[in-house]
């Protein structure tokens, strides 16, 4: 065939964008690909519960049973007034469930997306957002329990409850950097996922979910230093009609800023290697 004339040669390509540009573009395009990550998350949930009549509501039922059994039990163990303790435990536990699965699954985001990563060009952020969205869907199912609990034990200030929403959004925003950071680390070092799983299990007992921070007596600062406590409080306290601990918003905002400040350079540095690690 005829070779095109020299005049047709395209101008030299623009210099390759820097790793920073590529990383930021990845995050931006990932977020903009709403349809893809929502769709993939939704089908993943559906696939898990296909042909079961109740579908994802099985999660709600098992969570409901758990909370219904543990509320009175631990209320008694800790000598608490059930009408105050039960909503505290129920809501705290459901929020904990969201945060802990976000943490545990963060390490797997790129490992499980291996077929996609090897075959098509897709922003890596899509895989993180897909994991987060799947957990949001599960959380929304569990929200039924929260509504039942709130109906049974109405909060003092229903309007305050609405401020749980920005709190939830901030929790999810933190899940983005955690997913990018742990996703890359775990793709490279396969020992980290089991470490995360055990740490999260441990954290459940060390974080005020089953117990109140006040029960710590003189060492309440230990809970104040726990970032997971502040993340939970951001959603739990407004739903219970309580004022947020004064440090919670600043602590979580600081954590978000630091998290992205650490993750973005890290992600920029190793983004190109992910495909070879998974």
């Amino acid at each position, binding site marked *: *065939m005829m*070779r*095109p004339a020299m005049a*047709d040669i*395209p101008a030299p*390509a623009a210099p*390759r964008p820097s790793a920073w540009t590529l990383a930021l573009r990845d995050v931006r395009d990932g977020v903009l690909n709403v*349809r*893809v990550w929502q*769709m*993939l998350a939704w*089908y993943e949930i*559906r*696939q898990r519960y*296909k*042909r079961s009549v109740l579908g994802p509501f099985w999660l709600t039922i098992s969570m409901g049973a758990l909370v219904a059994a543990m509320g009175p039990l631990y209320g008694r163990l800790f000598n608490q007034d059930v009408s105050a303790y039960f909503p505290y435990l129920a809501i705290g536990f459901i929020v904990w469930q969201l945060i802990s699965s976000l943490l545990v699954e963060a390490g797997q985001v790129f490992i499980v997306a291996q*077929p*996609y*990563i*090897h*075959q*098509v*060009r*897709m922003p890596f952020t899509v895989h993180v957002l897909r994991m987060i969205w799947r957990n949001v869907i599960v959380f929304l199912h569990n929200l039924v329990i929260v509504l039942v609990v709130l109906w049974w034990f109405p909060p003092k200030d229903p309007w305050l409850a609405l401020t749980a929403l920005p709190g939830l959004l901030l929790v999810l925003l933190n899940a983005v950097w955690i997913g990018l950071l742990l996703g890359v680390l775990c793709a*490279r*070092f*396969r*020992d*980290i996922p089991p*470490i995360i799983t055990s740490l999260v299990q441990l954290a459940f007992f060390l974080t005020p979910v089953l117990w109140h921070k006040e029960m710590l007596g003189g060492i309440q600062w230990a809970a104040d230093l726990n970032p997971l406590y502040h993340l939970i409080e951001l959603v739990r306290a407004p739903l219970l009609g309580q004022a947020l601990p004064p440090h919670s918003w600043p602590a979580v905002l600081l954590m978000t800023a630091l998290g992205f400040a650490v993750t973005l350079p890290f992600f920029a540095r190793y*983004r*190109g290697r992910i*495909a*070879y*690690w998974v």
Partner: protein
Amino acid sequence: MGYIRATDLRVQFAVYGIASRSLKKSLLRAATGGALATDAAAVVVKALDGVSFEIREGERIGLQGHNGSGKTTLLRILAGAYEPVSGTVDIRGSVVSMLSITLGMDPDATGYENIFLRGAIMGMSRKETEAIVDDVIAFAGIGDYIYLPLRTYSSGMSMRLAFAISTVVSADIILMDEWLNVGDAEFAAKVQQRLNQLLGSAKIVVLASHDDALLKQHCTRIIRLDHGRIVSDAPVAR
């Protein structure tokens, strides 16, 4: 617009998983300066070792080589899935990768839903997918099965559907790993016709195969790879 230029592409895989992808080994290595972690030098495979070429509009490129010669790695780089460790690749034009035409299909979703799922993964919007959905259904020719879950399909039927979706959009640059042979004799004729039509309208085609005759039939130029290097790059004599 279709144009590809690759300059000195290099890809090395460190093969982990034997022992060295463990945190323990890395920590040991860091702490002991490599004295204790004996596998410190992970097995490094040079998948591509300084590959340069230029592909212009109208060319049909055959990538030939044995297993492990770097064909698939090169295709994945052209598809944008891999980033080369060093070197640059400049691609102008829309790329459709047919490296895995079943990627992302969900066995529990219906054929109809899978068209949308697969479309989203290929980067199509809902509107764009709606525009092609009738064409896909007609081409796949699986009748009312389209409303049943994919897992009820025979393997031939799901391949037909996957093929129909993946080949419905035309692109400037088409990447293929092995020639697609789908379905029974009757459907195969339809497939070949569709492929020829698709490849005919593409500005650049890159087809990897180790079948010499097939490449000579479909390509205008054959690049031979061996151990990650180009050993020959010549037009096909007609």
